[in-house]
């Protein structure tokens, strides 16, 4: 099965950690194999052009910025991407 990468870009504040946790929960509920990364390195964030945190990227495609997506939102997005 193809490996999925989910990148959560955050700064360590509560909202960013919440998105990270929601992604972990969503992936667990969907029972898929995914590499979930939590990126707080400002340089990497800047190089991606992201300006609002937290941000979410699936397989290196930027999906959302500045929003703490809910578990169901994340599941829906993963579904439409697979």
């Amino acid at each position, binding site marked *: 099965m193809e490996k999925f990468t989910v990148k959560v870009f*955050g*700064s*360590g*504040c509560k*909202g*960013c950690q919440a998105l990270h946790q929601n992604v972990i929960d969503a992936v667990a509920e969907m029972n898929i194999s995914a590499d979930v990364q939590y990126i707080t390195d*400002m*340089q990497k*964030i*800047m*190089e*991606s*052009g*992201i*300006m*609002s*945190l*937290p941000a979410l990227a699936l397989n290196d495609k*930027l999906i*959302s*910025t*500045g*929003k*703490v997506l*809910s578990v169901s939102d994340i599941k829906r997005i993963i579904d439409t991407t697979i």
Partner: protein
Amino acid sequence: MLKVIQNQILGMQWLKILIGKMLESFGLDIQGKTGASLLFFLYDVIKISILLFVLIFIISYIQSYFPPERSKKIMSRFDGLLAQIIAALLGTVTPFCSCSSIPIFMGFTAAGLPLGVTFSFLISSPMVDLGSLILLASIFGWKLAVTYVIFGLVIAVAGGCVIKHLNMEDQVADFIRNSKAASIELQKPMQNERVKAALDSVCNTLKKVFPYIVAGVAIGAVIHNWIPQLWIVNTLGEKNPFGVVLATVFGIPMYADIFACIPIVESLLTKGALLGVVMSFLMAVIALSLPSIIMLKKAVKPKLLAVFVGICTVGILLSGYLFNALQALLL
């Protein structure tokens, strides 16, 4: 007509009367200390929650049209003082959580925007926004709200100009100065996505801020009914020429949502605190805070950070004294 909007729609006087009657039907004396506190408490919590709901929804919806990426594009088109003014204005409509301050700062700087312009944006963003404007208008009237916004924008523009002239470009963190600009094009959301995002914003904010609102109203109620007027007049009123300084110094390290501060400010005012003192407290609390300064420290070197904090502080102090002077005209 304006008075009706002011008193009934924004001020919700009908709500106060309704709650008063309800409490009286339970046998409580709303003129007595406990009854008055309870009335104030219930009225304020409900009023602020309704305002919060409506305001956050409308403002989040408007803000969905101004993501930082778009602001960056708009600001790149202007030069000089005009750029500073546009930056300050855009700062008021762009959604901004303090943990985004670094990416925004990095994005603007990497796009080649001058330091002064970026700082005008950074100063105005937390201090002045649509939500604060309408909230202040509903509690204190339009004259005060508009004056507050004007002062905030002036501080933002002036602050940006000062930073521009200090030539502190080398005070930005090295990794930002050495970056190349990356531009992302996010899909424009559709109408129903905007509405959903606005509703999500309301729910998340309500959940996060509600405890602060209750705390703020409780403190306000205590001030309203239990703290002696004399004490307030002596420390925060006309008896103390340093009231503004005290309020600012107190307010800077703190952070609270503006919705939570309002009941405290309201009570202090009715008890004889000067307008400028409470306004500078409000501005200090929402514009500067330990978390946002810690965030900014990652993006700028200490000297520039100190200048930023210094400018905001001076601006708030000046506004405070100005508000004091204009109190009779504004309230």
